């Protein structure tokens, strides 16, 4: 079976984290390069505390990790976790692709008069 999917119950935390536009944007930025929370906060019309909360939701879903550097908190992406989330939807799409191919095979038999 599929390996490397989120453990039971973790999928909801992942999707909850990804279901918010600001959090997806934060994630997109830290995939490109690590960012401090204060640097991230400058991109959004909300308080530092609000941005920090979004980072915490991403952290709980294991999509990012945070560590201290001097007086700053630096946010890193956890690429493996991001890949697991996208793989879930991809795997389901793949199922429909396989079904489509199988229906097409049945129709082909019609045409060949089997």
């Amino acid at each position, binding site marked *: 079976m599929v390996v490397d999917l989120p453990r*039971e119950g973790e999928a909801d935390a*992942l999707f909850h984290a990804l279901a918010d536009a600001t959090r997806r944007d934060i994630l*997109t930025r830290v995939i*490109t390069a690590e960012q401090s929370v204060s640097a991230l906060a400058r991109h959004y019309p909300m308080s530092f505390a609000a941005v920090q909360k979004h980072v915490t939701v991403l952290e709980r879903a294991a999509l990012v990790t945070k560590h201290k550097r001097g007086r700053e908190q630096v946010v890193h992406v956890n690429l493996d976790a991001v*890949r697991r989330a996208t*793989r879930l939807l991809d795997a*389901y799409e793949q199922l429909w692709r396989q079904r*489509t191919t199988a229906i097409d095979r*049945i129709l082909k038999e019609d045409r060949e008069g089997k």
Partner: protein
Amino acid sequence: MPVISSTKDVEKLTLTFVAEFAAAPDRIWQVWADPRQLERWWGPPTWPATFERHDFTVGGDSRYYMTGPEGQKARAWWTVTAIEAPHRLEFTNGFADDNGEPLDPTDVFRTVVTLEATTDGTRMTTVEVFAHADQMERLIGMGMDEGVSLAMGQIDGLLADAD
């Protein structure tokens, strides 16, 4: 491959899948309505489906299982909520116990199938709305193969750059 598009909405846990086939809507309707045809395509290649019941009427139930490579069985069910042959089919899905009965009748997700005639066949649109992500995870665990490698927009592109 006759796949036209697929759209994934992470926010709404919705997958929309559009495919076109070189046959009229009446013929595509049969692959849903006839359980012997349905079981030839519903399960993934290594997990063929067997429909023990398929009452294709509003309020009707379907019970099926998929058999894995080691003989393990994954059971699930549908209840049809709307039928307009040969253009529209709606049903709720859930997981079943070893006797084929619903595990939790409230833990369901919805499927809406629309068939439209095109100049040379049928466009089939399937929309699946999940209540929570664990349903998707469980379904995928029920019979997906490895080796999935399809794009997922922006994040996927960025992941490729990050490698």
